[in-house]
Every structure is written in C-alpha cells, then in structure tokens.
C-alpha cells in the first residue's frame, strides 16, 4: 500500500506549489503537481495598449524579473514588424545576462543549497580543513581558517540564540546529507556571501532600466539613451559601471559558484541516476548576435530533442498552430470543444472552473482536475524546459563552446553523459550555462562599446511607435529563454488594443498536471523513482523539485478570447 505524502507549501521557490506523492518501499511511485494560486493576467491585459504589456507581464514574476518584459516587447515587435537597433539588442542581452548571473547563483545558494548542505553539521567542522578545501578548489581570497572560524562562530551564536529563523525545522541530520562537515561550512559561508553579492550584479538593470526588481523596457528598443557628453544619459561612467559589475559577477561565478557546484556534486554523484524524468527537451533559444530575426546565430540555439536522441534537433516554430498547444484535462478550466482538445495560444480559450475540494482540504482529487496550471505540449509531447534543455539542444546542435564546457564538467566529475539526464544534471547544467553566459556577457559589452565608438548610439526605433502606423489587426509571438526555461508570449492586436494575450511559461511546461492522454509533465515524471527515506522528511523530493527551480506565479494564468467576465466558480 502506497503512502500519500503532501508537501505544501513547497518552500524556497517562487509562487505556490503543492506536491502530492505516493511513496512505496522508500520510493516515489506516483506524483501530482499542483499550482494553487492564480491572478488572471491575460484577462486583465485585454483592451490595453500593447506598448504597456511589458510592464503588466513583467509582474508575472519578480524573481526572474525582466524575462516577461523581454518576451512581451518581442511579441509586440513581431506583430508590428519592428526591428530594434543593434545597441538596444545588446543592452537587452546584457540585462538578460545580468539576470541569469544573479538568478542562477541565488537559486544555487539560497533556494537549492539547503537540500544538499547541512547547516547544523557545519558547526562541527574544522575551519582549518575547510580553508584547505577552499584553497584547493579556488583562488577566491576569503578562504583563511580565521574567516571560516568566524562564520562558524556566528552560526553557533545563531543556533544558541534559540531562534533559528529561516533554518528552523529544516531536515538537519537527515541521512541523505552526504557532505563532510567542512564542506557544509564552506557552503554555509558562501550562502551568506552570495546573499551579499547578488544585490550588486542587478545594478546593471538599474543603470539601463532604472530599478531592480522590475526594470523598464520599451517596445522598439530600450528607454536609456547614449550621450557621452551628458551626465543625464549613458556616458563613459555609466558604461564603466556596467563593465565593473560584470567583471565582479564573473569573478564570483568562476571562483565561488562553479567550484562549489563541482565540490558539492562530487559527493552526490548517485543523483546523476535519479530524477531523470521526461526524455524530451525544448528550447526557444535566445541571446541574438545579429538581430532577433537571425535565429541561427543565437547563443542559445532553438530546437527540440525527442527521446534523448542527441543526433537530431527538431525545428521549433512558435507560429505553427500544430506545435505548441495547451490542454486542460486536469486543470480547473473548461474548453468549449471539450476537455480532451488542445489549443494553440492564438486560438486558445479559457474558462476558469474550480472543481477541487472546498478548502480547507487534506488532499486534492488527482483523478479529476487538480491545478491552476494548464498543460502545454509540443506536437503532443510533454517537454522539459530549462538549463538542461538549453544545453542539450546546444550540445546536439554542435555548438563548440557548449560542448567544451559540458564535456569538461563530465570529465571533472568522472560521470557518463547519461548523468546529465537527472536531478544532478539539471543543477549542474544551470551552473555550466552560467559560465557560458559570463563569457558571452563580455562579448556583448565589448560590442556595445565598439558600436558607440563607431558612432552608432541608436537605442530606439520610433517608426511604429505611433498606433496610427499600425495595421488594423496583427498577431505576434515573442520567444525567449527565462532562467527556468522556454518562455513565450502570444499577442493579437486589434484596432490598436490587445485583443488576446497568452503566456506559456517555463514552469507551466514543467509543473503542469497530466494531459488528456495521461502523460505526465516534467515534475511528475522526474519524481518517479526519487527515494524518500523518511516520508515525514521528504528531503529527496525537494532536491528533484528544486532542480527545476520552480517559479509558479507566472505559470498560472487565465484568458478568454471573447473578453467575457468569467466567474463560473459557483459549482460547489
């Protein structure tokens, strides 16, 4: 008889996620993932000015802030056939890179590390040994025995205070924690350092977009202007500031994040065989080098992989209505064409229809509908999206820089390529792409300086700013890669207003419930076989779920093509 465990709230994520899992003989045999909060973005967007949509959709998520704004301006630019100036593309790329650098580091240390690092065990560490380990893996200067002794002293004071705050009730001492006390101390010290560090690199957003979280974007370019002879614009000082922020960020990634990742991973190699999940991977690709229309030149290529066949990358087209479709068989919505049909976002319809248990509830009725997330499919296939999908698509596309980084890590850890298809693989892929992005950010920065040096200071294309220049009706799609995976916005513009707007976001792909055919999405699939030694402390479940970096607030949405006020919730 399987034992049903419920983890709600799943913490150290963005949004509200609930996992119900069946555990039998110490392993998860079935799992159900549910998004339990909804805000209704798409309905709210109807009738608004398309140029405002970036600001609305950016508020889908404050953790991966900027990514929805980028997808949104691209959707509008696609619909209105606007090409942004090269400098604007570079500034967007730099903001993209800054976001990834900050987001991936925060995920590793603040959202994921406590699944692998036992903070309480760090109290028993020998700071001298921690120092030796730190110095053997990195030249990062904060690595003296005294430094680690101070961190330990501080931690001891914290525990002795009797108020454990964010560390209260953790699964400390759980048998699945494998790191020596000294590495736990190293991880804890860097947890605190990373918290200090992360607030710096986001200043790239503040310089270009005025604030962070939620910097400003602009349809047709970026809002900041270049004027080397003016203190009110991007001048040498501002650009130098950006350069310094990137240098510091890259140093932290190379000297702290990546060495820590490899050090921690080396103790958890068995997780290279756990949490494999779906065999299909999808990436829309991003970081254009020669304009957004030249998809072949993206740093992250676009494509899909089926059945882990790395010899073939399938073409992905956001405008093909047969490719991306959303299903609602197990979601609290209804379709006029019935629960078994799927709909492309341009043709979609959604009617909220809560049919779950009346709160407070113990369990969801997982045989029926059980989530506010819809279920997206690519040509009918469930797809995993995220850092691993991006790297695999790039790897399979023969990108030399990606191959080098991936092969290097596999060699360093002495694990086979199949270890990538796992909980550990996802966590490692996130780190490896951070390394790639660190390198690419320098290229983009240098290119921006070169353009300005050559006299090109354009940041905005004003040709179609005025709605009177727009066609009566237009459709667009904005494809991007959020830190958590493939992100796309679809827009329909009529008479200068938003007639339809649809977001299909990474965590909708990964965290969604089953589809009409009963196929599991990525979280549910990856949890199968994940061990749970102690059902009261499902630490291992958290590892697999956190390896996806859940971000649920963006994943739930509603929309109604006829613009009706939908409140058909009075069914219970």
């Amino acid at each position: 008889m399987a034992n049903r465990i419920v983890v709600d709230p799943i913490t150290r994520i963005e949004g509200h996620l609930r996992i119900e899992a069946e555990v039998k003989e110490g392993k998860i045999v079935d799992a159900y993932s549910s998004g339990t909060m909804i805000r209704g973005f798409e309905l709210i967007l109807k009738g608004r000015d398309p140029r405002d949509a970036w600001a609305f959709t950016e508020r889908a998520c404050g953790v991966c802030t900027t990514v929805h704004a980028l997808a949104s301006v691209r959707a509008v630019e696609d619909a209105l056939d606007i090409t942004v100036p090269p400098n604007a593309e570079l500034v967007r790329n730099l903001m993209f890179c800054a976001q990834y650098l900050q987001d991936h580091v925060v995920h590793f240390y603040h959202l994921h590390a406590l699944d692998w690092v036992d903070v309480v065990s760090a109290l028993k560490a020998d700071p001298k040994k921690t120092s030796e380990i730190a110095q053997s893996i990195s030249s990062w200067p904060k690595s003296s025995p005294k430094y680690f002794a101070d961190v330990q002293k501080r931690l001891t004071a914290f525990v002795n205070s009797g108020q454990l705050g964010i560390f209260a009730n953790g699964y400390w001492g759980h048998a699945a924690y494998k790191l020596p006390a000294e590495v736990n101390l190293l991880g804890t010290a860097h947890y605190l350092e990373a918290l200090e560090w992360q607030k710096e690199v986001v200043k790239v957003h503040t310089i270009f977009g005025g604030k962070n979280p939620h910097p400003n974007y602009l349809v047709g370019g970026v809002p900041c202007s270049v004027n080397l002879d003016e203190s009110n614009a991007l001048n040498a000082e501002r650009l130098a500031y950006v350069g310094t922020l990137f240098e510091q960020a890259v140093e932290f990634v190379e000297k702290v994040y990546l060495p820590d990742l490899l050090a921690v991973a080396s103790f958890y190699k068995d997780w290279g065989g756990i949490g494999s999940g779906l065999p299909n991977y999808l990436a829309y690709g991003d970081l254009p080098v020669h304009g957004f229309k030249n998809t072949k030149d993206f740093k992250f290529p676009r494509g899909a992989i089926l059945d882990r066949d790395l010899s073939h990358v399938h073409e992905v087209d956001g405008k093909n209505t047969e490719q991306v479709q959303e299903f609602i068989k197990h979601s609290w919505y209804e379709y006029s064409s019935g629960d078994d049909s799927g709909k492309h976002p341009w043709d979609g319809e959604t009617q909220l229809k809560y049919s779950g248990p009346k709160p407070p509830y113990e369990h969801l009725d997982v045989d029926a509908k059980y989530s506010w997330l819809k279920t997206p499919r690519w040509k009918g296939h469930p797809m995993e999206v995220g850092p691993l999908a991006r790297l695999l698509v790039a790897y399979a596309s023969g990108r030399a820089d990606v191959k080098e980084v991936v092969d290097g890590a596999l060699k360093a850890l002495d694990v086979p390529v199949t270890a990538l298809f796992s909980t550990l693989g996802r966590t490692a892929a996130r780190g490896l792409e951070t390394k790639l992005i660190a390198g690419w950010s320098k290229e983009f920065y240098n290119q921006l300086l070169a353009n300005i040096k050559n006299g090109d200071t354009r940041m905005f294309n004003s040709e179609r700013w005025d709605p009177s220049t727009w066609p009566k009706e237009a459709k667009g799609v904005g494809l991007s890669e959020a830190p958590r995976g493939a992100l796309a916005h679809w827009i329909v513009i009529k008479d200068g207003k938003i007639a339809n707007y649809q977001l299909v976001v990474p965590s909708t792909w990964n965290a969604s419930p089953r589809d009409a055919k009963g196929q599991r999405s990525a979280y549910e699939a990856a949890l199968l076989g994940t061990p749970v030694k102690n059902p009261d402390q499902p630490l291992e479940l958290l590892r697999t779920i956190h390896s996806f970096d859940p971000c649920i607030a963006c994943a739930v949405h509603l929309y109604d093509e006829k613009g009706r006020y939908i409140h058909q919730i009075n069914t219970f």
Partner: protein
Amino acid sequence: MSDTRLTMWEYAQIQGYSRRDFLRFCGWLAAAAGIEASGVGQVVKAMETKPRLPVVWFHFQECTCCSESFIRSSHPIVSDIVLDKISLDYTETLQAAAGHQAEEALHATMKKYKGEYLMLVEGSIPTEADGVYCCIGGRTALDIVKEAAAGAKAVVAWGSCASHGCIQAARPNPTGATPVHKVVSGIPIINVPGCPPIAEVMAGVVVHLLAFERPPLLDGLNRPKAFYSRRIHDTCYRRPNYDAGLFVETFDDESAKRGYCLYKMGCRGPVTYNACGVMRWNNGVSYPIQSGHNCIGCTEENFWDNGPFYQHLASFPGFGIESTADTVGVTVGLVTAAGIAAHAISTNIRKRKLIQEGVKESGNARTDKEGGA
C-alpha cells in the same frame, strides 16, 4: 534548544562586530528610518536592549518582487539584520523547511509569541469564489491572513499588492484581489506600496519598528511619511527641465539624450508619492526617470488602470495644476514663460496647503496611529 533571546548588541558582539561597527550601524538605522541625529542615542539604546523580534512573512497573490527587493537592501549589515537580527520564522522564499515542517514553524511562533510577532504580508488576498484562487497547505489565503493577524503585534503590507491589490486587482479584477487592510482590522497596518518598494525603504520600515516598537508616522493612507510624503515630481533631478519647458518628445530623441523632462512621455511623477527621486534604487544607482523611462506611478492605488502609461497626464480628467505645463511643451516662447509662472504659483499655493495639512495631519497621526504596536 534554549529559550534565551539575545539583544541586538549581545548578538553583534558574538558575531564579532566592534562597538564602533555597532554604533555606526545604529547611526545608519536612524538615518534610514528618517530620524534626526539627536535620536541616534535612542536607537543605540533600543538595539542594546531589544531581543530579536519574531517575524512571519506571508506570500499570497504576488510575484515575490518584494522579497527580491528586500534582499537587495544595500548596507552590508542590513542583510545581516534581516537574516539574523529579526527572527524570520516563516518565509516561503527562504526557509529551509517545507510542507508541514514549515507550517509547524509558523504555528510555533504564532503560539509562543502571540501578540508579539510582526506580520509581513506580500501579495493580495483573493476573495471571490470563497478564496480558492490562492490556497496554501489546503487553506485559503483569506483564512490564513485572518488567523495570523489576530495574534500579530502589527502588520506590514509590503508592496502595492498587499497595500492596494496591484496588478491582479486591475480591471476586471478576476479573482477579487483585495489588499490586507480590507480584510484585517483591529491592529496597526503599515502600507509600504511600490512594485516593488525600494529595498532601503523596506529595511527602513523594519528598522523603525524594531528600534522604536511603534509604527513610523503615517499619512492618511497609512504609508510611512518618511518615504511617501514627497511627489517624485518634486524631488526629481530633471525638474528644472520641466520648469523650463524642456521635454522629451520621443524616446531617444535629442532631448532624451540631454535628459530633459519625461512628462510628455507619460511620466506619473507629478501624481506619485515615493522616495525614488531622493533615495534612488539599488543603493542610489539610478531610478526610472534617470534611466530614461517615465515613472509609471507604481505606488499609487489603481495605477494599472490609470493608463496607458505613455499617454501624458494632462489628458486625464481630474488632473489639475500641471496641465498648464503641457501647453508649455507644445508652443514654446511666450507661453513657456506664462506656463512656468502659472506652475510656480500653483506649486506655491500647493506648498502652503501641504505645510498646513502636514501640521494638522501629524498632530492627528500622533494620537491616532502611534499607539504602541
């Protein structure tokens, strides 16, 4: 686990901070909380004697931008404060525990520190359909917020979601998103609007509560006056361009490259109360207008429905005094002078009125809202 609760000063000592560091920190706290130099001694005393305040942080209908902003708080020791010097006993974003262990930690604090803990709320509360649009641990946000508020010392409503509903409350508000103050009553509520609020504003509010054990002076909308009593327009470094009739006409035009006023691009600075112009963002690096984009008014109620964002304010009904300045940009020359004069006069009238209101309001506020939280 012992029940001892260390004071901030004891705590700082254990952590190896010198007395000098500690005093400097207290000075910073005082500055951040908008306290005059003569009040620093009071801060030092408070920090020496106060144990760590138990804090619970809820997430409802939100995007976590407030939490993200909070951890951007710039002064190095501030992140220590939020991690260590308060006791953050429940926060879905950062805490190690999940599921029922997280809920247990929450309930332990609510029970043990009944009437003492500080409740921070990020996000609005959906009230339609009996609250099914946001459930945590099988319970509705509405249920949770009411239960937790009943035992809290005070509530801080972080950001525009908790303060006035923000984006999910925008037309047609499909889930019945509602701010905290409309579902909770009987305890002090401090609204800290913004999407998100500035990191140092958030830290400043916590610090004020911690050091003085009472809410900061609030305005009529329960916002701390220290950060929300000035219009962005009145503190904007581009204001002289406005007064001179120098406006950006299109993004990235010659005027934009010179940093002229963004009023005609739709700037909401004239109707938005926030500290962006004074404190700026991310440790003073910039703010939206400085980086070339108009203010979208993210601290104001219903700002999402007060659009479109790129349509300038004079076209809106009910917008009074600055409409004269709009004429300035359209026809330069003599009208400019007239416009400036008209604006200057109206501003002065407004200034006098504000001072009078301020005097009256602060008198009331002290009796109404400074009651010991």
